[in-house]
């Protein structure tokens, strides 16, 4: 990690440590912590990290933003920081200035489509849009007869059916019915919904990797405190081996996610097989790690980790929820498998070795 990435990530880390302590949040049923946290993040310029100065953002690099997302994952942050960052990034691809306040992206699944009509209005239905209920604006990707467009849409003009994801955060259905956007621009050549989903997938991968790091951390700590059969449970070989496997899953997620982020940072175009391999693999492998890793973390904690009072679920359930956003691991596995098949058997190793 470069020094500047450290500085931005450390800023985020400090804000989360001060204003998003997991114990405090877990006991605050009213959500009083949310507003001060969002304000501090906004003052630090983090939600619009990926938006250049002239479009209303703080102009941080892609790498700096990715580092922030890993930290956000470690704290299982339940405000739309990642979503606003991604929305700002999408708007920037269309050279559209970002407004203040919470945003999210529509659609958030490869299955859903928004279409642009000849009269300039947008229509479509998007399921599982994270934090739609909390957002003031949506960054929308739409298909029209002249290709792909990027639009800024006022959330108040859309119908939002409230839903809740596995992690307890809003995951809503957004319906656009002939909505006139605040502003709309054509996307650059080669940019399409797959590009957005891959980028979203890498964002979620970094968050999952972060959540797994925390699950490993608190599981190790708990095993060194909890006594059973007259010794710390960390001294039992079965527990040690489970935690070693959790470390392996955490490591795999971290490696896959940071590699994919790095491939996007250094890519000249996001429309390449190499970026596809990296980003799809990250989402697949991190999702698998979320399943295996959270199961071990819960196993180590026993019944206490299954209680609403304990903080473990903040990480475990979010890591599991994040698997579903921007294409599940099943979706990406099929797409990656098809790509590999089309390239042919003898081109598989050269692709893997090129990374």
């Amino acid at each position, binding site marked *: 990690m470069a020094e500047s990435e450290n500085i931005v990530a450390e800023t985020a880390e400090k804000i989360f440590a001060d204003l998003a302590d997991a114990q405090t949040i877990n006991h605050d049923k009213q959500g009083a912590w949310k507003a001060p946290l969002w304000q501090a993040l906004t003052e630090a310029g983090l939600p619009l990290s990926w938006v250049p100065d002239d479009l209303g953002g703080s102009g941080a690099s892609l790498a700096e933003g990715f580092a922030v997302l890993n930290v956000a994952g470690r704290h299982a942050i339940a405000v739309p920081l990642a979503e606003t960052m991604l929305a700002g990034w999408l708007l920037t691809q269309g050279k559209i200035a970002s407004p203040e306040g919470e945003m999210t992206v529509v659609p958030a699944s490869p299955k859903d489509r928004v279409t642009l009509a000849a009269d300039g209005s947008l229509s479509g239905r998007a399921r599982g849009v994270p934090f739609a209920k909390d957002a003031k604006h949506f960054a929308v990707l739409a298909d029209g007869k002249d290709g792909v467009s990027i639009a800024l849409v006022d959330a108040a003009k859309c119908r939002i059916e409230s839903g809740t994801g596995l992690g307890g955060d809003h995951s809503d259905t957004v319906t656009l019915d002939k909505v006139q956007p605040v502003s709309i621009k054509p996307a650059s050549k080669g940019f399409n919904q797959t590009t957005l989903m891959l980028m979203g997938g890498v964002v979620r991968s970094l968050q999952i990797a972060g959540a797994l790091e925390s699950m490993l951390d608190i599981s*190790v700590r708990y095993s060194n405190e909890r006594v059973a059969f007259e010794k710390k449970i960390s001294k039992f070989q079965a527990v040690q081996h489970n935690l070693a496997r959790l*470390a392996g899953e955490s490591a795999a997620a971290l490696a896959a996610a940071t590699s994919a982020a*790095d491939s996007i940072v250094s890519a000249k175009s996001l429309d390449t097989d190499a970026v596809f391999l990296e980003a*799809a693999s*990250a989402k*697949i492998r991190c999702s698998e790690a979320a399943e295996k890793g959270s199961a071990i973390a819960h196993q180590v904690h026993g019944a206490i980790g299954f209680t609403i009072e304990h903080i473990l679920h903040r990480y475990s359930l979010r890591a599991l929820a994040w698997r579903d956003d921007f294409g599940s691991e099943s979706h990406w*596995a099929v797409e*990656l498998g098809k790509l590999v098949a089309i390239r*042919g*058997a003898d081109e598989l190793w050269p692709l893997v070795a090129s990374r």
Partner: protein
Amino acid sequence: MTAALRFDPIRLPEKCEQLRKEVRAFLAEEIAAGTFDPYAPNREDNDAPEFSRRVGAKGWLGMTWPKKYGGQERSFLERYVVTEEMRVANAPTRRFFVADRQSGPVLLKYAPEHIKMDILPRICRGEVCFAIGMSEPNSGSDLFAAKTRATKTDGGYLINGTKIWTSSAHIADYMIAIFRTSPPTKENRRHGLTQFLVKMKQPGIQVNPIGQITGQFEFNEVVFTDYFVPDDHVLGEVDGAWKQATSELAYERSGPERFLETYYVLTELVRAVGKNPDTRSAEGIGRLVAQVHTMRRMSVSVAGMLQAGKEPVVEASIVKDIGTVWEQQLPHRVRDLAAFVEETATNRETLEKQLDFAIKTAPKLTIQGGTTEVLRGIIARGLGLR
């Protein structure tokens, strides 16, 4: 944080890509000349001494070592490229692999100068084969229970005892082995073992082949009877072998051979399903590709840390733990998917033969070079649990 595991996204430098092209071209020539069959993954059976010499002539053995010993002073990342290309091609590396990866570095660190000057250039030329003498009939994972004695005598030591599961001992010119020079102490049960360089193919050493479930004869029992080893063949500190074992292990544990051992079945599955896979095949292949890509990125990351002079002991153990478990499961996952391959697939027979071989090979992958259980113990220690 309890455990700050690092897996930075290290990339192979540009110069590696030129090298990769050279290695691929060389291997293609060897395949065309009939040196080995890339579809028949039995490199353990194929003792190809001429191939070994040709690899040496290319400068690809001992490539990270000092030039005065025949090396090339190239980076570990360049060596990484050569290793992974050879693995994926199923090249017959048995004759030089151990010497290049492990034995040479041990000699570099602990052997006297005249021995280095004698042996290291021959390793680089691909002329000598090494074996590793660790396990004994009653000490496998528990290395420090070794009993084979090295008794001091005039000018050297007399060796008596038995090593077992010693890969390639039947063709090896040398072995690097640990023998007991003193009993363990009450305070330190690891005390009393010494590392030696042993010249094979001599009277006093009997090598008995042991058949494996794959049908191969790749490992052996090696019996020493009053076998004389001169003083200058002691490697490092007498009674202090336990201090020497750890740092080299990171290289041994994290290389491409720790997840690519059965990779060929994945290539062949992709060939068998063709350009238009059904959803189940596509999904299955996609997951396996994501997993192997991730393993490789982890492994390259550790190689990069080693090149930078760090000691990623826990990270390397993680790579071997999940890498060997993965390569062990791979043939079974490929078999799951192969059940749906069309009868008419042109490579069906090749795939089935490879699956048979890979499934038979699989059990050893999580045993050799440090069992899964031992590795998880090392990881647990790194996490602060021990």
